[in-house]
């Protein structure tokens, strides 16, 4: 290795492999966890004040974070699988979602849920153009693309094109219905049960159901 090699600036393309050389230092990417932004500082200050004033405890906050993390799309998948196998449950799910979901063991809290059933005639897809309203109580944290400006602005205007980008081709003669959650309701898509799943158990069916199908950007396949 030439004497000046490790003094150069690493502005060349790293499309070659180096043998291990302790003299050859790559620049480290700086850590991102030491930036105290305005909102981080505000969050920390408010949290510490609330704890100091006895309004909440550190333990309350931990418990709430854990409860949030425990909400995952598999919860929704269980609901879908039950609806596919039990017509009476499906009817209750559409008419009284909170009570029906409680039967499957999940509390949707204060959320007002609208269940949208996909049929051979209608395909439903959900968006929140104003922000990123999402049925977190049943599906957990929304995916990043759901919050992106691109998805929010395009899916209302050219839903079929956006669905195609997700690999979902909706037949021309099937209606596409976009649901913009702008206020107090949250939306949950009940996808269609795929063909060829007649002999499957509820648990096997639940394993087929993925998050995106409950937002309506994909369909479930066997």
């Amino acid at each position, binding site marked *: 290795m030439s004497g000046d090699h490790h003094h150069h600036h690493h502005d060349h393309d790293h499309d070659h492999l180096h043998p291990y050389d302790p003299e050859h230092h790559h620049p480290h990417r700086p850590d991102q966890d030491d930036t105290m932004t305005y909102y981080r500082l505000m969050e920390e200050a408010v949290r510490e004040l609330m704890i100091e004033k006895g309004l909440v405890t550190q333990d309350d906050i931990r418990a709430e974070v854990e409860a949030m993390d425990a909400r995952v799309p598999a919860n929704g998948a269980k609901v879908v699988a039950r609806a596919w196998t039990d017509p009476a449950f499906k009817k209750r799910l559409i008419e009284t979602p909170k009570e029906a979901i409680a039967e499957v063991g999940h509390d949707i809290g204060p959320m007002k849920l609208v269940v949208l059933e996909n049929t051979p005639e209608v395909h439903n897809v959900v968006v929140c153009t104003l922000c990123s309203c999402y049925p977190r109580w049943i599906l957990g944290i929304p995916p990043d693309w759901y919050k992106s400006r691109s998805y929010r602005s395009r899916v209302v*205007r050219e839903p079929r094109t956006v669905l195609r980008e997700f690999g979902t081709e909706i037949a021309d003669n099937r209606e596409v219905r*976009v649901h913009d959650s702008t*206020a107090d309701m949250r939306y949950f898509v009940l996808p269609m049960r795929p063909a060829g799943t007649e002999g499957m158990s509820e648990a096997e069916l639940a394993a087929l159901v993925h998050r995106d199908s409950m937002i309506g950007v994909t369909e479930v396949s066997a």
Partner: protein
Amino acid sequence: MTRFAAGDRVRVHKQFPPTPPSHIRTPYYIRGLSGTVERVCGAFRNPEELAFGRPGTPEVPLYRVRFRQKDVWPDYDGNEADKIEIEIFEFWLDAEGDEA
């Protein structure tokens, strides 16, 4: 009591709130358009008031209104039957044909 019921034809107000700053829940792209009430969602505290720390009471009726995509986007090239449904508070709506 709600002013509208499922099946009623309504038109969304066109105007912006007169005195900014404001917080509104009716997207720009749907202003001034006519649709059909899909369902009455119930009454909720007014988020346009809650946003400013005010109580948002009395509660205001909320509807889901269904619009034809062809009416929303003149150049829409999907199925004629494609729809978009949006939640709209009653104070944003007039009966179709009734608007000032």
